[in-house]
């Protein structure tokens, strides 16, 4: 059965970005959003929240985005959950590396809060069409 996009786990360490991204995704995009401020929080939240998609910041203190993704893949509830990375540094070789890790794509920072939800939907559709 085709999976629909309703629940997004946002993993972002900056509280100011958490607030605006959460607003953009939940209020403007209509998604159900759970915010985790670190890899550890995401690993604890993922099994119960069971997201349809994980939006994952690349540069976080402690465990970074790619390492967090590898750890999330060990959790049965999210072992195949699609992931989109968010990063300020979009280098072609890094985008290729993120795709090899299984991400749907990359959203550049700074993102536009008014179009973030639509950008997420676009990447989701590209993956599922």
């Amino acid at each position: 059965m085709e999976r629909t996009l309703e629940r997004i786990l946002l993993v972002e360490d900056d509280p100011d970005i958490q607030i605006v991204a959460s607003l953009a995704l939940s209020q403007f995009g209509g998604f159900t959003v759970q915010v985790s401020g670190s890899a550890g929080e995401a690993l604890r939240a993922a099994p119960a929240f069971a997201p349809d998609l994980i939006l994952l910041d690349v540069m976080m203190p402690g465990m970074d985005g790619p390492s967090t993704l590898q750890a999330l893949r060990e959790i049965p509830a999210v072992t195949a959950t699609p992931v989109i990375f968010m990063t300020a540094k979009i280098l072609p070789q890094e985008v290729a590396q993120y795709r090899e890790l299984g991400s749907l794509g990359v959203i550049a920072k700074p993102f536009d809060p008014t179009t973030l939800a639509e950008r997420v939907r676009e990447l989701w559709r590209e993956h599922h069409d």
Partner: protein
Amino acid sequence: MTKTPDTHIEQLNVLRERYVRDLPDKARVVEEAVDALELRWDRDGLDTLHHLAHRLAGSAAIYGFAAVSEAASSLELLVNAALESAAPPAPSDMLAPLRERTTALVRAAVDEQLRSLRPSRKGRSPTAQSEN
């Protein structure tokens, strides 16, 4: 292209006003990280400074404060170069440029806050570029 609903703009403006109110304090936290480095120069201190500058560069850009984002990015680049250098630079060579860029960051943050207190800001796009 779809027009952004006014309610969304209003919600973003509320967040933007809250963000700019705290902006000088955020910049001063960066300044304190430089103070700490002056007392004790080590890699942990540089990592902390890099992280703070990176965060501020990213969030200021998202909230539409380009001058602050650029000042924070400039500081982030300087610290990143020091962290990635094969031969770590001496504190005596680094502290003056760090101070200079941090002072510019604090000034940009205060300027944005003062600008936000002036009237006739209604309707401004939350992601608009800085007026600098």
